[in-house]
C-alpha cells in the first residue's frame, strides 16, 4: 500500500525539487529511405519521420498529464545522415538538414538529432560531404542537431577529423554570429559515441538499433541535492547510499514513462538513460550537489572526487530501477545549462582545465562552454584531441561542445536562451597547438592491458 508520506515525497520531488523526465526520444531508422535523387530522398525521410512520430508529442503530453510529472522534451533521433545519404548524387547535404527541420516542425518535437557522421577510422565520401555541410546546415535550420564521432577505444583518434572539426566549429560560429554562434550549441564532437543516446545535441539512431525505438532520459539534480541537505557532516558511505536510493526513485519514474510511451506508440522500448541533467534554473544544478558535499565552490580541489562519487552512485542506484540502461548515463556538466557552474566560472573557481579533469569521471565532456572569438581553430582542435584521448584511453564516452563566440572576449557573458542558458566566456591556454594539429593522420588505438 502506498502511504501518505510516499505521495507527499513524490509530489514534493516534482513541484519543489524540479524532478522531471528530460526527454522522450524516438529513434527512427532511415536506412530504408536512401535514394540517388536528392529530392526523392528528402521526401522519403520527411514522410517516414512524420508518419512514425505523428503521435509522439501528443502521447508525451498525455503521459505527463496522467502521472503529473513534467516531460520537458520530445525529440527524434535518426540514422547518421552520412550513411543514408551516401548514395545521393549531391555535393551538399544542406537540403537534407532542411528536410529534417521541416519534419521536426511538422510533428512538433523540440529537436531532431542525427545530422551525423562516424569517422573514427576514416572518411567515406558521404562523411566528407556531411562534415562540410555542417556549418550551413546548422545556420539554415532551427531544430537539427549534428554530431561527429571521431575517436573510439578500438580505432584510436582520427586526427585529420580533429583538425577539420576545429575549422568546422569556427565556420559554424561565423555563420550564426548574429545569434551568439548558436549553431555550435547544436554540434557535438564525440569519442566512443553511444548508439542509443536520447540527449541532444548528440543523439543519433545507431545502425544496430531496430527500425524504431523509444529511449527516455531522466533528470533530477534538485532531488539529489535535497536528499543531501539532510546529511550535513555525514561520511561518504552515507552520501553514496543516499544518492543511490534517490537515483533509484528518479529512474523508476523514467522507466514507467518509457514503458508507457512504448506501449501507447507501439514502438519498442530501448533504454533509460540514467543521466542527471541540469537546467539553468535555480535548484536544478549539478554544481550545487558537489557544493552540498562540502566544497566552497564547484572547481575547488576535491571536485573531481565529489563528481566521481555522484556519477557512480547515480549509476548504481539507477541500474536496478530500469530493465535496460544505456545512452550516456551519468552526471552532465554543461556549463551554460547549470546555474551553479555559471556562478563557479564567474567566481573564478571553475576553469577549463578543471572541467577537463571532471570529464574523466562523469558522463560526457567539455559541454556548452563559450570561448573567445579569437581562439584559433587549431587551439579548438587541441581541446578536442585532449578530450578524445581521455575517452579513448579510459574506454568511456567523451564529447566537446564548445562555442567560440565571434567578437566575444574573456569575461563577456553570452546568452543562448531557454534550456541552453548563458555563460561567461571561459579563458583557454593561449600557447599554440598549431604544429601538433597540422600533422594529421591517426593516433593508434591504445593498449588495453598494463593499465597504469
Amino acid at each position: 500500500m502506498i502511504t501518505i508520506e510516499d505521495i507527499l515525497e513524490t509530489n514534493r520531488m516534482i513541484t519543489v525539487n524540479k524532478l522531471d523526465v528530460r526527454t522522450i526520444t524516438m529513434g527512427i531508422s532511415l536506412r530504408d529511405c536512401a535514394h540517388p535523387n536528392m529530392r526523392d530522398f528528402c521526401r522519403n525521410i520527411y514522410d517516414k519521420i512524420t508518419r512514425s512520430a505523428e503521435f509522439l508529442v501528443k502521447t508525451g503530453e498525455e503521459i505527463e498529464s496522467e502521472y503529473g510529472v513534467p516531460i520537458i522534451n520530445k525529440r527524434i533521433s535518426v540514422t547518421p545522415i552520412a550513411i543514408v545519404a551516401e548514395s545521393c548524387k549531391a555535393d551538399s547535404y544542406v537540403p537534407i538538414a532542411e528536410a529534417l527541420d521541416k519534419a521536426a516542425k511538422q510533428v512538433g518535437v523540440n529537436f531532431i538529432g542525427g545530422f551525423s557522421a562516424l569517422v573514427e577510422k576514416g572518411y567515406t565520401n558521404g562523411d566528407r560531404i556531411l562534415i562540410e555541410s555542417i556549418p550551413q546546415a546548422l545556420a539554415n535550420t532551427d531544430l537539427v542537431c549534428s554530431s561527429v564521432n571521431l575517436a573510439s577505444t578500438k580505432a584510436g583518434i582520427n586526427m585529420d577529423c580533429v583538425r577539420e572539426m576545429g575549422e568546422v566549429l569556427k565556420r559554424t560560429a561565423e555563420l550564426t554570429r548574429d545569434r551568439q554562434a548558436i549553431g555550435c550549441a547544436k554540434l557535438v564532437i564525440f569519442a566512443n559515441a553511444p548508439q542509443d543516446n536520447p540527449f541532444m545535441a548528440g543523439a543519433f539512431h545507431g545502425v544496430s538499433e531496430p527500425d524504431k525505438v523509444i529511449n527516455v532520459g531522466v533528470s533530477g539534480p534538485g532531488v539529489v541535492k535535497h536528499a543531501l541537505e539532510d546529511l550535513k557532516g555525514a561520511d561518504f558511505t552515507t552520501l553514496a547510499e543516499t544518492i543511490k536510493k534517490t537515483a533509484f526513485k528518479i529512474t523508476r519514474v523514467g522507466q514507467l514513462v518509457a514503458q508507457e510511451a512504448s506501449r501507447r506508440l507501439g514502438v519498442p522500448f530501448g533504454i533509460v538513460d540514467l543521466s542527471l541533467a541540469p537546467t539553468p534554473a535555480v535548484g536544478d544544478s549539478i554544481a550545487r550537489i558537489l557544493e552540498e558535499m562540502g566544497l566552497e565552490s564547484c572547481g575547488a580541489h576535491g571536485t573531481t572526487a565529489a563528481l566521481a562519487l555522484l556519477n557512480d552512485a547515480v549509476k548504481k542506484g539507477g541500474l536496478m530501477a530500469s530493465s535496460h540502461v544505456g545512452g550516456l548515463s551519468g552526471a552532465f556538466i554543461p556549463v551554460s545549462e547549470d546555474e551553479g557552474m555559471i556562478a563557479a566560472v564567474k567566481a573564478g573557481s571553475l576553469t577549463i582545465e578543471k572541467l577537463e579533469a571532471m570529464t574523466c569521471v562523469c558522463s560526457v565532456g567539455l559541454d556548452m562552454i563559450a570561448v573567445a572569438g579569437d581562439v584559433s581553430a587549431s587551439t579548438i582542435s587541441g581541446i578536442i584531441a585532449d578530450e578524445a584521448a581521455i575517452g579513448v584511453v579510459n574506454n568511456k564516452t567523451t564529447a566537446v561542445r564548445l562555442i567560440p563566440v565571434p567578437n566575444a572576449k574573456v569575461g563577456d557573458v553570452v546568452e543562448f536562451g531557454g534550456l541552453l542558458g548563458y555563460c561567461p566566456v571561459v579563458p583557454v591556454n593561449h600557447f599554440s597547438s598549431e604544429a601538433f594539429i597540422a600533422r594529421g593522420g591517426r593516433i593508434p588505438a591504445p593498449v588495453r592491458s598494463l593499465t597504469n
Partner: protein
Amino acid sequence: MKLIVTVVGRDRIGIIASVTKILADNNVNILSINQNILNGFFNMILFAEASENSIKLVDLQKKLREQGEAIGVEIKTQHQDIFDAMHKV
C-alpha cells in the same frame, strides 16, 4: 485504474462535497480519504478507482482542476502507477 487525488488550499465549507460530487458523477469509486486542517490550510489525499471506459483520466483531471480553481484550492489527480513505480520494488 487507481487514482490519487490531492487537494491543498485555504479551508472553507464544502471542499470535500464538491470534489466527491464530481467523482460520483463520473462513476469514480472512493477507496480511502485522508484529510486534515493545518494552520487553516486544507489537506486531503483521496484514493479512488475509476473504470477507463467511463471517463478518460485527462478529462477527469480537467473537471477537478477547474472545480479547484472555482473554490480556491489546488486539485491534482494522478494515476497511482507513478507512486507504485517509485516506492515499491
